[in-house]
């Protein structure tokens, strides 16, 4: 596996494991912090869709193909990581796998998030998404500049 294939994040949350589990495995709660209004509950083999509610991305619909659920321990789904262009059908393209692992530790819950499979994604798609995001950031920066100069 190459160094550009995966992202791994570890964080200790000061909350009981059952609390963290609900925030991840309950579609409504997942949507609250992730910023998406999901239309169904999570179950293995089910594809759950929803409108992104995160500011700046409201024109996008997200799709999560739920792979595996092990209560309070493991939750995994697949999605299209660079699906940021409205009107483009990404369904035939490779997906990345997102895995959440929960572990009880002193003072809370250790959460590990791994997203892998990026090397399967066509290079052109990565480039395009990167440029679009960069443009997004440039626009945001200009918005801030504008706001600051006017207030």
């Amino acid at each position, binding site marked *: 596996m190459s160094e550009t294939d995966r992202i791994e994040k570890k964080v200790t*949350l000061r909350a009981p494991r059952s609390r963290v589990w609900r925030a991840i495995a309950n579609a409504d709660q997942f949507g609250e912090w992730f910023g998406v209004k999901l239309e169904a509950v999570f179950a293995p083999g089910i594809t759950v869709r929803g409108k992104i509610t995160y500011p700046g991305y409201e024109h996008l619909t997200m799709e999560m193909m739920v792979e595996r659920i092990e209560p309070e321990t493991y939750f995994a789904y697949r999605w299209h990581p660079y699906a940021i262009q409205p009107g483009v059908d990404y369904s035939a393209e490779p997906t990345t796998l997102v895995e959440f692992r929960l572990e009880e530790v002193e003072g809370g819950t250790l959460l590990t998030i791994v997203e892998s499979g*990026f090397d399967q994604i066509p290079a*052109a798609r990565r480039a395009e998404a990167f440029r679009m995001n960069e443009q997004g950031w440039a626009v945001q920066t200009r918005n801030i500049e504008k706001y600051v100069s006017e207030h």
Partner: protein
Amino acid sequence: MSRSTNLSEAKLVRAAPVFAALGDPTRLRLVARLCRDGPLSIARLSESSDVTRQAVTKHLHALSKAGLVCGRRRGRESIWELELQRLKLARASLNQISQQWDAAIGRLKAFVEK
């Protein structure tokens, strides 16, 4: 012999094929073109040059063997690009997603710890 001398010796040995691959005006021109214009097909690379498509293909394979360029199929043609650019872009796009995860984790933290 000191350890650092050994290391630089190893680096020199590894770098030699790269310079060998670049030691040809046509190949150097191809690298410069890919550097300036990004990924291109063999057809585009052979335009405006007096070298045949077959020769361009042969040169691209030599550069590929040295790890300087890589080709991928798109439909019926091959698109060639600099390996370095591909890696740089892959890293940059991964960094971006990594930052998005950091932000999402921040929101999750606030959500479960409140």
